[in-house]
């Protein structure tokens, strides 16, 4: 489904060049539930952005269903991202001036710009129900708890029926109860045939994935049951 081949990404730091990813190759298959762990600054988020078509690699290719993602025009890439890929971020990144419902619906705008999308509205209502946010649909993000915000962000990521869901530290700011709830949603998404790529520090969250990797020194290492980062 998603194939990263010999991907390299370098950033220019204050004193030196930092090679975050080095000739990294990695395949994400349909219905995979992948977790990637690693120390802060090791390049987990970069890998996720790169795989999701948001950040162009310095070298190597990222192919979605056999087509080079970065070979598309910005418009087409945006369109693919909108239809195929969903995001959940650690910082919840909801638009403060939109209500819960509007925040979810905003994800439908790239496709239906001139008229309200009836299907999207129905789907939004369904997602609000599913994430137990129906009663809060008219509230603004400032009135929500962190867990509620994360559920809204999750619902927004699912609105366009993505095939792959990328999540960057989705439970980072949540209490254990809410973290469990969110993880349950990931499980459900995979059960429904979706693919999840999860970047996390949390060992327990990572353990829910069927494929677990660790990122170290620009390389991805397949991790079995016992983690290679006991400290994390």
């Amino acid at each position: 489904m998603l194939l990263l081949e010999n991907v390299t990404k370098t950033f220019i730091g204050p004193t030196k060049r930092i090679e975050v990813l080095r000739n990294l190759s990695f395949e994400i298959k349909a219905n995979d539930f992948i977790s990637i762990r690693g120390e802060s600054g090791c390049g987990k988020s970069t890998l996720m952005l790169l795989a999701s078509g948001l950040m162009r690699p310095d070298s190597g290719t990222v192919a979605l269903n056999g087509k080079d993602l970065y070979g598309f025009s910005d418009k087409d890439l945006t369109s693919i991202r909108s239809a195929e890929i969903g995001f959940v971020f650690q910082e919840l990144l909801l638009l403060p001036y939109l209500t819960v419902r509007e925040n979810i619906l905003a994800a439908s705008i790239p496709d239906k710009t001139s008229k309200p999308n009836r299907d999207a509205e129905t789907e939004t209502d369904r997602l609000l129900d599913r994430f137990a946010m129906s009663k809060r649909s008219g509230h603004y993000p400032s009135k929500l708890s962190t867990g509620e915000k994360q559920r809204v962000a999750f619902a927004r990521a699912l609105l366009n029926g993505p095939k792959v869901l990328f999540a960057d530290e989705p439970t980072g700011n949540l209490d254990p109860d809410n973290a469990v709830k969110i993880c349950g949603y990931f499980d459900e998404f995979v059960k429904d045939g979706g693919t999840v790529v999860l970047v996390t520090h949390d060992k327990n969250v990572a353990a829910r994935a069927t494929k677990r990797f660790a990122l170290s020194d620009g390389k991805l290492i397949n991790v079995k049951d016992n983690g290679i980062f006991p400290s994390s």
Partner: protein
Amino acid sequence: MTLFSIVRKEFFYRSHITIVAIAAVAIAVAALIATAGLLRLFDASTESIISKKEKEVADQTEQLQEEYRKIGTSMGFNILVLPKDQDLADLYANDFATKTMPDWYIDTLAHSKIATIQHLLPLLQQKVVWPEQKRTVLAVGTMGEVKIASAETKKPMRDNVASGTIYLGYELHNSIGCKKGSFVKFMGRQFTVAGCYPMKGTKDDITLWINLKQAQEMFGKKGLLNGILALECQCAMAKPDQVRAEIGAILPNTQIVEFASQALTRAETRSKAADYAKAALLSEKTSRASLRHEKEKYFFLVLPLLIGTCVVFIGVLSYVNARQRRTEFGILRAIGFSAGRVAALVNVRSLLIGVIGSIAGAVCGFCALIVLAMRTRVGVWSLVDIAEVVFAIVLAPVCTMVCGWLGAMPVLGEDPAEIVKGE
């Protein structure tokens, strides 16, 4: 949910920055409309002043001319009585009448009951060579004014020229170098200079006046005259034609001409009155035009400064707004908004600010002109050019969009991945 819904919601969410941006656009548009209106008001006021002035000047000119006419009339006019057979062409060509008439005509006229003449002056004029000075002069023999028996006694306008005395025109006494009391010789006779006249710029400057009897003797025209000057005929009582008719009845063998200088003087006086009025009007127009130029200069300095400040301000506000929305732009990109769609959010917002601001500015500018029109009692529509207002209303949103775009560009140009990653 549409793109416009997002713009609308954000518009009200960041209401402070929105209101300030709208105010900046409104100020620029209002200033533009009000300035144009002020200049138009100045023009209207100028037209009104000039028109009023023109009417005043026309009235004053008419009044002045009437007054000058009356003054001229009361000054009287001069009549020259000539022999009937005198060819006027010769008179004008030679500067004196070649034909003569008996000198008792003067007595006849003086003892008649003529009422329209105040003063009579018998003349014997001749252009002669002044042998001693070897130059041609106009010699006039006169005896001073003859009193009209029926007229009230008035102070004579011309003094009697006593026998043996001579009066000299400016050019003559000046070239000879003599003055009052000097002695000069004229055609072999010695005369005492009784008067030297100042420059007049007429043929009087080359004229000399001597006693009539002496002149008759010297020119061999004893008992003859070639003109009687009737001075200061009172046309308040009689017009020149009436005077002519009255004299013609008393002296049938004469003809009468109006002495041109007086008539011309009156005409010139009237003309000068008109010229003065025109000059006053021109001066007013010039002064108003100069004042308008000054106002234009002032407005065209202040206006671009004001509009420029507003434009820069809108750009800065747009930049501030874009900075505030940096994360928002990143997340929108991440959830599927293209760069163009995110830019559209900025542009639609700027357009909305531009449209609302320009309409608000136009309304404010118009209200200001209404107040101005009421105070100055000028029709408000004479201060407004609809095309100009439409132009301002259309131009302001375009400018706002450009400023908004330029202001937001540094943020819009950022990599969304960097923004998301940074968050």
